[in-house]
C-alpha cells in the first residue's frame, strides 16, 4: 500500500501522502496539520487519526508533543445538528 493509498483520516479521507507533505513542507504541529488538511475534523472527532497524526508529526521533525500543541478534544463529542442545538428538532 503506497503512501497515496494509505488513508489516515477515514472521515475526511486524507491520505498519508498529504499529511507527510504538509508536515515536511510547513514543519507544523499536529494542530496545524489538522487546520491545513482537515484531518481530525470529521464526525468521529479524531478518534481514528489523532494518535497517528501526533506520531507522524513527532517522526517527521515537527515540534514534540506537549498537551497544548497536540490535537485537543473538542466538543461536541458526537455530531449535533444546529436544529437540535437550537431546540426545534428532537
Amino acid at each position, binding site marked *: 500500500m503506497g503512501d497515496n493509498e494509505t488513508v489516515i483520516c*477515514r*472521515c475526511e*479521507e486524507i491520505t498519508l501522502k498529504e499529511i507527510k507533505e504538509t508536515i515536511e513542507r510547513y514543519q507544523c504541529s499536529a494542530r496545524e496539520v489538522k487546520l491545513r*488538511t*482537515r484531518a481530525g475534523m470529521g*464526525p468521529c472527532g479524531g478518534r481514528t487519526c489523532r494518535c497517528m497524526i501526533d506520531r507522524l508529526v513527532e517522526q517527521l521533525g515537527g515540534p514534540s508533543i506537549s498537551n497544548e500543541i497536540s490535537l485537543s478534544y473538542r466538543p461536541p463529542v458526537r*455530531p449535533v*445538528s444546529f436544529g437540535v442545538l437550537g431546540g426545534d428538532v428532537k
Partner: protein
Amino acid sequence: MNSMRVDNHPVFGSLEKRKNITIYFDDQPYAAYEGDTIASALLASGVRTLRCHEDKGTPRGIYCNIGHCFECRVRVHGQNTVRACLTPVENKMRIESGILATASFKGGKL
C-alpha cells in the same frame, strides 16, 4: 432468500420467529425483521454501501457498528446523520443514503 442471515447458529440456536416488515432504502423495498437495526437489515439483504463520502464520493458503510464512527450515517424521514447501526427499523421506514456535496470542503473555493 436471506443469504447473509445466520438462521441457525451453533451457539445461539436458531432465529426465533419475528414480524416481517419492509423498509425502503433509496426507494428500493427490502425485507427486514422487527428488532433489526437499519444497518443489519440492509446487510442481511446484501446492501453494504449505506452512503458515499460527501466530498470524495467513495462508497461507505458499516465500520464500528457501535455508534462511534458515523460511517453508517443515513437520512431517515428527512432527518440527517441518523446512525444506521443503532437505529431500529420500523415498518415502511424511508431511508436515503444522503447527498453528495457539490463544492469540495477543502481549499475554501466556492
